């Protein structure tokens, strides 16, 4: 029996799951201390299900806490960015594309040192340990207690980052060290950006993970707990303390994974309709398809694993306007003021919720207030809502074939008719807590991103080696070996080169080993 918890910016949701069954769920406002919201949610779940804390075998937590901290620039630790690359890469020093206020928030402590690797594993320069000890002395002098280490081609070889970490720990006792090889993919600047963000979250991570641990202890839950990552897999709570950035964007991922679980779909499109916006994403093998391009977080470009989402301005509070017979819906919304501004609540703004009530799709507020709406208007609005969803689904599909569509989120009541391009439409039960369910069912994964030179080895051998390595990483992270599967293989040839080199990215996932 597992517990899934989603600590969002607004609500904390908890679910109790056994096998494929959701036994109980509860939603409560998120509290400033995080922990008491979790306790409230869990107490209600236990009360509603007649199960006891000692029956729980694992707890999975998803949280947006760290993303919000960076976006709001609060509780960030002063950190150093150390790039292991000289004499290469001087054209673009670390944090060059950061907003000035965020750079200021963590101090502008940038160091370039000798080292790094070429694409084929050769060293750019040997590591100069004396140089590293000088940097360490400077960090000590400036009282900087967290460092982000990024070496050129760290995804090919992470050894130099590890050695620099050892030296820093010797010289600066208690220093937090973040390694880029643990965080991102090929793309130096973007991987470095993510690593620096990780460094400045180190203290907050310890506080938040401790508050999770304390909350569970208070309820007598002794099972291990895990934190969900942005790719829909889990990390241990100890690892989350070191790499909180890997939780970024885990919310939408969990929501999509939850939708996949609730509907039983492995392939399909998930439409999560909220109050202001809708997120649409595609499922491949039950996991969200990942974005191929760089993703900006808090206005900083990163390249780590994020679900590929299309967001657009349609939700339960979207404002409907009519101009010369032309109707528009959103992108603005009355948001949390729905209960005062919508027509059905005595307000003066025509919203999508009013239309749903007028059409008899939803029983909410005072229906009499929308009786005077022209049937043509109601129909036109419903048509437009469906058209918007259809366009978004079509955009996220990978082929022209019809595909299952899974609707979740409070705003999914707006969809009442068949959708073009959908082979079937599902609105699963418990859709409102899909996030927490997604956390509860999360698996464990391993990933490899590497350049292979195909001289002396065939492409098949290279792919097989990479697959073995990804599976090994998943098992190391706690996956049950018998359940591990390769879920994603991406192969990109290195163009413009006579030698036959390919970049291979492979992901393997398996069920968590639960004792």
């Amino acid at each position, binding site marked *: 029996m597992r517990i899934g918890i989603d600590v969002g910016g607004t609500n904390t949701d908890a679910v109790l799951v056994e096998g494929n069954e959701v036994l109980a769920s509860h939603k409560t406002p998120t509290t400033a201390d995080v922990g008491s919201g979790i306790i409230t949610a869990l107490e209600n779940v236990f009360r509603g299900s007649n199960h006891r804390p000692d029956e729980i075998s694992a707890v999975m937590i998803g949280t947006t806490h760290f993303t919000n901290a960076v976006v709001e620039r609060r509780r960030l630790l002063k950190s150093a960015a150390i790039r292991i*690359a000289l*004499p*290469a*890469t*001087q*054209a*673009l*020093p670390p944090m*060059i*594309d950061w907003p000035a206020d965020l750079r200021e928030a963590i101090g502008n402590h940038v160091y370039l040192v000798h080292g*790094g690797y*070429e*694409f*084929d594993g*050769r060293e*750019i*320069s040997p590591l100069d340990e004396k140089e590293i000890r000088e940097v360490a002395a400077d960090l000590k002098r400036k009282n900087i207690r967290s460092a982000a280490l990024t070496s*050129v*081609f760290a995804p090919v070889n992470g050894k130099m980052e590890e050695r620099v970490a050892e030296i820093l720990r010797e010289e600066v006792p208690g220093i937090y060290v973040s390694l880029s090889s643990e965080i991102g993919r*090929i*793309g*130096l*600047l973007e991987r470095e950006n993510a690593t620096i963000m990780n460094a400045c979250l180190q203290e907050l991570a310890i506080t938040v993970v401790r508050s999770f641990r304390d909350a569970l202890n208070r309820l007598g839950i002794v099972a291990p707990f895990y934190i969900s990552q942005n790719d829909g897999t889990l990390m241990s709570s100890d690892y989350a303390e070191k790499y909180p950035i890997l939780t970024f964007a885990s919310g939408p991922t969990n929501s999509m994974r939850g939708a996949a679980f609730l509907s039983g779909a492995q392939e399909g499109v998930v439409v999560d309709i909220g109050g202001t916006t809708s997120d649409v994403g595609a499922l491949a093998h039950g996991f969200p398809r990942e974005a*191929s*391009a760089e993703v900006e977080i808090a206005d900083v470009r990163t390249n780590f694993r994020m679900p590929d989402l299309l967001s657009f301005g349609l939700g339960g509070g979207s404002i409907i306007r009519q101009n010369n017979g032309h109707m528009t819906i959103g992108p603005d919304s009355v948001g949390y003021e729905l209960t005062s501004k919508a027509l059905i609540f005595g307000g003066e703004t025509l919203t999508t919720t009013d239309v749903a009530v007028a059409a008899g799709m939803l029983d909410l507020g005072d229906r009499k207030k929308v009786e005077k709406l022209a049937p043509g208007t109601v129909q036109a609005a419903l048509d437009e809502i469906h058209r918007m969803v259809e366009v978004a689904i*079509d*955009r*996220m*599909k*990978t*082929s*022209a074939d019809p595909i299952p569509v899974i609707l979740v989120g409070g705003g999914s009541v707006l969809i009442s008719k068949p959708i073009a391009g959908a082979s079937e439409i599902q609105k699963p039960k418990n859709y409102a807590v899909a996030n927490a369910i997604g956390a509860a069912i999360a698996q464990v994964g391993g990933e490899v991103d590497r*350049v292979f030179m195909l001289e002396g080895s065939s492409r098949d051998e290279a792919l097989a080696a990479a697959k073995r390595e990804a599976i090994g990483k998943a098992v190391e992270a706690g996956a049950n070996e018998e359940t591990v599967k390769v879920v994603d293989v991406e192969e*990109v*040839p*290195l*163009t*413009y*080169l*006579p*030698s*036959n*080199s390919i*970049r291979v990215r492979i992901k393997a996932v398996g069920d968590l080993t639960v004792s």
Partner: protein
Amino acid sequence: MRRLDEQEIRDIANGSAILGTGGGGDPYLGTLATLEAVTKHGAPQLMDPEELSDDSLVAFPFIVGAPVPGVEKFPFGNELAQALRTLEDQLGRKVDAVMSAEIGGANSMIPMSLAVRVGIPVVDGDLIGRAFPEIQLTTLTLHGIHASPFALADEHGNGVVLNVIDNFWAERIARAVAIEFGAVCVGVAYPISGKQVKVATLHRTVSFAGRIGKALREAKAAKKNPLDAVLAAADGVEVFRGKIIDVERRTQRGWAVGEAVIAGSDRFTNRVARVRFQNENLVLMVDGEVVASVPDLITILEADTGAAITTENLRYGFRVAVIGIACQPIWRTEAGLALAGPQHWGYEVKYVPIEQGAGAA
């Protein structure tokens, strides 16, 4: 001669992405590096080709190698100055100005990054007027002008000078050197006189890219149709519009080769377009007829934003407009088409000038 401010540099980068016809590399890192160099060394000077004295010496810096290593070990810092020095040592004289080898994509930014470091101007023009992936595909080859001496350099200070018998060998040997330098490095090639610049290069294409980028930016700010703005600034024509319904890719001789299929919408409803690409978009066929082909420019833009989509980012579901821009007249000569026309890329189709193809479509 005039100084370029940050806004103009960004406009040039954005315009160059459209002139990149789906390839040419992302100018993002190059733009950042240029702006960083500008902060340190001052704004670049842009000079009209007519302002050059006939006996001045001009050279062409660019990135050599593969895009993937280029995002880990970006070489456009001191490496550029090192390559220039290597070339100057070989020639026994200073280079007076640099010029873009390729206005489409990432190489549009490289001359500025170098020019501000060494304090010389950038000439307003280039050698292609678009993006091409091989060193010999330039107007200078058509004028019988050698790429060599051709200097390559890395971050350590290593420099190599190629003296090659023709520009095809330049391409082959430079790539072999690039592998040793970490699969990506910079080169400075085609040292020519001011007089040769005046007759054998494409003029004012940097300003052209800047005008396209500016039109795009201003249309967005004014909430006007960005596509119309791009077409007007680039003197382009919309040759198709619709939704991408299939993208097929494969690797051939180390190149990313493929085809995107677009189902027509608006005035192209019920018609199907196929864009064939090899790093760049090369041939557009509508209902089986060639509408546009290399060396004319074929760029796929996101229909709502006017943003250029690179060939590696083409995906099912994108709402796109395909625009065609006439190439520079020299590419339409017999020699130009023999060097870079559809047959060079292995397509058994006849070149159709965009004005003709678009009229028929």
